[in-house]
């Protein structure tokens, strides 16, 4: 996917892109990361997503539709990235769920362990189930929006959330995480 062309830009448009970035960058990054499992690649997806948003600002007047639009673009872009590098296996054990922290309070280390356990469990899900859970339970999107982002119906989205959660439950139970 090409990312854009040099255009003379109105300052208002730049401000809008910046505003959208501030509001949505975390969700966009997380959607991308859970597909590509690499910070640099996820950052590339974030950039491509907001640059594309800039070229479609006229379509993004409706505030309610901005988030699903952005996340759908990010999700598709991320899938394109992993298809391109199909030959490079990613080892779930290597996933840095949080920045490696130096010596710090115990609860920080515990939180990092919990996040790592969750990350490994998420990695074990099928692509579709994982994204459904990320959108519904991590990003807290309503089910209808999960469906929109994934380009499927609400029932199908709900089924993926269901299967994803139950798979996570069997994987994580007995680990003293709750």
């Amino acid at each position, binding site marked *: 996917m*090409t990312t*854009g062309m040099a255009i003379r830009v109105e300052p208002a448009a730049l401000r809008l892109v910046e505003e959208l970035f501030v509001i949505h960058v*975390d969700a966009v990054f997380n959607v991308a990361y859970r597909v590509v499992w690499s910070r640099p690649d996820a950052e590339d997806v974030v950039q491509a997503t907001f640059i594309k948003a800039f070229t479609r600002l006229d379509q993004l007047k409706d505030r309610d539709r901005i988030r699903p639009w952005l996340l759908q673009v990010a999700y598709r872009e991320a899938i394109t990235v992993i298809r391109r590098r199909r030959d490079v296996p990613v080892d779930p054990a290597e996933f840095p769920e949080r*920045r490696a922290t130096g010596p710090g309070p115990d609860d920080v280390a515990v939180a990092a362990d919990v996040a790592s356990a969750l990350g490994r469990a998420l990695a074990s899900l099928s692509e579709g189930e994982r994204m459904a859970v990320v959108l519904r339970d*991590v990003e807290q999107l309503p089910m209808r929006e999960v469906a929109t982002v994934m380009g499927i119906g609400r029932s199908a989205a709900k089924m993926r959330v269901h299967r994803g959660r139950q798979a996570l439950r069997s994987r994580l139970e007995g680990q003293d995480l709750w």
Partner: protein
Amino acid sequence: MVGDDPTAAITCELMAEMLTDLMEGDLPAEIEAAALDHLASCRACETVLADTRAVQKLARDHGRIELDPDDRDRMLGAILAEVDGAPGPTRTTEAE
């Protein structure tokens, strides 16, 4: 539901299938009531629901990868530079 007692029709297997519908508030009222009755009297299903809610909470509280301010600045800078077309004097962009 078939039969005169809707509660009797709720098996643990059916309960497991309906769990997400229940959590989403998607069940018809009378089925929801029967499901809640089943949960009240079935320890196994009650545990599955509680654990599923725990998974939800875990995902909400620990599922997000954090971004540092530096990460944000770097990305935003790259985006604005790209859309503004400004800083780089010879910006070559891929043709669409």
